[in-house]
């Protein structure tokens, strides 16, 4: 597996994604500069967290026009795997690679450890995770309130595109467990083709016990399973 990590000028989780893939998974990775046009043969594209272009106006709104995003969109179109984490999720929504929008949190910026429940295994980021698994990892964002119309949301749920929900210690998606006001506690989704995944929590920050959690590993390992399937 070769992972291409897109570097926007304000990306700041690009290195963390690199360490997760290279140091922890011992897989290949390549950094892709946002002004370039070449995915350098990467099978999986990661849009990492950060503040791509300062996140002025709306998070991800400007980044989606970066030159490399044309190739990323074409890759997704071909069925290639694209993973958007945090700001990457916002960019993917703005670029309409994923449905919905990520609005300002109902409570301001939130940095803390959350628990998310895996809702589906039929996606490249959950293929190795058991359904109902509760994973603990950090969030750190100001605009992560997943939003779309109720009708679209019903369709999204019906099509099994909701991959992760924020849950409490008992695994229940309660209002208390919802850190940002996301509709129906949604923490991550995929597109209809199931090859583009976006999530607000940071699995790349939960790869080692030294840092408090290694629950993010299974999501990255899922990429491998998916790549070899």
């Amino acid at each position, binding site marked *: 597996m070769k992972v291409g990590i897109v570097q926007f*000028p*304000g*990306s*700041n*989780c690009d*290195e*963390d994604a690199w*360490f*997760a893939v290279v140091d922890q998974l011992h897989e290949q990775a390549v950094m892709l500069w946002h002004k370039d046009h070449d995915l350098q043969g990467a099978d999986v594209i990661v849009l990492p*967290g*950060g*503040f791509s*272009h*300062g*996140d*002025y*106006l*709306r*998070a991800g709104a400007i980044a989606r026009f970066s030159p490399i995003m044309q190739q990323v969109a074409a890759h997704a179109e071909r069925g290639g795997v694209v993973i958007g984490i945090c700001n990457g999720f916002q960019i993917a929504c703005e670029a309409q690679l994923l449905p919905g929008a990520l609005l300002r949190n109902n409570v*301001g*910026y*939130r*940095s*803390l450890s959350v628990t998310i429940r895996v809702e589906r295994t039929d996606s490249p980021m959950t293929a190795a995770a058991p359904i109902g698994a509760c994973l603990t990892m*950090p969030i*750190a964002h*100001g605009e992560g309130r997943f939003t779309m119309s109720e009708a679209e949301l019903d369709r999204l749920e019906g099509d099994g595109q909701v991959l992760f929900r924020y849950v409490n*210690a008992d695994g229940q998606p309660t209002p208390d467990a919802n850190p940002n006001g996301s509709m129906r506690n949604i923490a991550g989704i995929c597109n209809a083709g199931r090859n583009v995944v976006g999530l607000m929590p*940071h699995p*790349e*920050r939960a*790869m080692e016990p*030294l*840092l*408090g959690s290694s629950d993010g590993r299974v999501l990255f390992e899922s990429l491998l399973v998916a790549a070899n399937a």
Partner: protein
Amino acid sequence: MTATPRQGDPVISPALVAEHGLTPAEFDKLVAMLGRQPTFTELGIISALWSEHCSYKHSRAVLRTLPTEAPWVLQGPGENAGVISIGDGLAVAFKIESHNHPSAIEPYQGAATGVGGILRDVFTMGARPIAMLNSLRFGSLESPRVRYLVGGVVKGIGDYGNCIGVPTVAGDIMFDAAYDGNPLVNAMCVGILREEDLIRAKAEGVGNPVIAVGARTGRDGIHGASFASEDLSHDSDAKRPRVQVGDPFTEKLLLEATLEMIASGNVVAVQDMGAAGLTSSSAEMAERGDVGVVIDTLKVPVREQGMTPYEILLSESQERMLVVAHKGREEAVRAILAKWDLHAEVIGEVIAEPVYRVVEGDHVVAEFPGTRLVTDCPMYTPEAKEGAAVIALRARDVHAIPPKAEERDLAWTLTRLLSSPTIASKQWVYRQYDSTVRTSTVLGPGAADAAVLRIRGTTRGLAVKTDCNGRYVYLEPRVGGRIAVAEAARNVACTGARPRAITNCLNFGNPKKPDVFWQFKEAVGGMGEACVALDTPVTGGNVSLYNENPHGAIYPTPTIGMVGVLDDVAHATGMAFKAAGHPIVLLGEPTAELGASEYLSWIHGVVAGAPPACDLTRERALIDAIVEAIQGGYVNSAHDCSEGGIAVALSECCIADTLAPIGATVSLSPWDALPDRALFFGEAQGRIIATASDLPALLAVAAKHGVPAQVIGSTSPAASGLVITGAGRELRASLEELAYAYHGALERALSRAVSSELPVAEVTA
């Protein structure tokens, strides 16, 4: 050549000189230095350079007494940041700086630009920032203005650091009416570099180009440096346009481009354009390199039409840097900056002639002979005399203060203390800070007495913390100065790190007042003693004077930023009890001391008595012991006793881990003879509560270092709560009530403020 006035320059009158903050004697010195009357531009330059903020004219003599050397110190005071070696060819650059005055006027932008400035100080040394800390002091939360300031400052710090992608991992906050009207906002940045990449901000090489990099220069913040050197009075509101606005995104570009530029070998020196902007950065770089420099203001990229040299030189527009490049490498420098969408403009040159010259095209608007523009400032040693009121307060017998009726229940007192904003959990604050980005935060805010970061590629870790109890310093400055260092060191040691060096931010009132200058001299003296005893030299810092308003000065607050190194980061130790059944050991001993405590202040509204004594030999032994015990693997948790004493410290150990609280049953009967309030809530120094994984080994290490160690109880299941007996009394509390008091207090106290702060905070995306 000589400088001549520009058309339209105001006439230099005594009133204009006074407006620029120069005394008549200082003005005479300027005239003597030039051998003629200054131009308006020159007056502006000197007003900035000789401001307290840039020249340290009231503090330099005292600062010289601080210890600054150790084998591991690579760069002491005088540079953008201090640097120490941490082994494996790696070094750490770190510095703390205040942004008190701007934050008092516009909390969001004031705090944000404070973070931006300290980040630049670190990355201009060639270091990649890896952690931010912040030390905050606010007035009473009863005041809506204070709540507004808290909300704005915290959001400003958070938004800036979060956007840059440097984790904010630790800090400290205290609330006291002494800071009403004069909040303190001190930000610290820690960066890492390879020793050989260290670069100093020293202009060198005649003919080398001087390049302005980054944001364009606008009219914002003109005279911020001299503004930071005045008391805040009511007409400070009129000075609002001086406030600067931060752009963290541009700063991120600047950070990446600067590190790339330094790595490329194309540049000689890099300096942040901070306070007094272009003027101080160019003058300081020239001074360090002992060379002359010429700047052409027409070449400086500006944001607005018609800016005068005076405005261009003194603007404090953010996210700008001054770079001296190797001659002929201008294009290479430009190419790196272009990659990051940044502009660079050659605006001047290093010259052999020992002058500081500013031209506007072919018109010389300022020219100073010599290269010691900053240090040739007049120096002062004001009168120092302790205030009579403080002497009386210190002498007061605080044990004579009768307890309140409710205090018959010790749990009442404890829960009240736990919800004092100074003691309560700062979760409301650090949940607004990204503390986990860069995937190196081993122990983040709230998890331990200091934050711990791993150093990639090694087994080592770095521990960092800020501290200072201004109330102690107020009541007895020398002791308070010592304690600030000792507590910071203890906090770092409690994680298993050997304290290595400090940076400091000296926040005081008006130094021209004898009692304030006495506080300053004494506090710095105490700080220096502690640094010698603990082997933690001072590598840099910042002085912020004139923190006062018509109602009086702040508590003298010499904030310490401590850096320590863990040999093995796998041993990093938090403060939370880990499991039931672990023996609890008290290292150090309780005393009868109660003076200057949070107990007296919060429960009785009394600020009096002497602060606890600080025996530096015992502090050193305690630190040596805890570091050795943790690195030996004998310790499960460690937490020092600070504000609120042993009862608060034990409570924090029980409830720090919100998901898995642990109970404790403790007997303090060896000290039954002590007054009960001192035993439970007194703030005797030099104490650590540790749980042992290997009790005999822990006790043996303590004995080896001559540190008193007592098994005082053991941890228990959460349901059994916290039980402490001693001095003939018993304290019983459930963990739920302790957690409610501690974890939610700040949020409850601030809840009204949060909403009233919102729209302003929405200024940036």
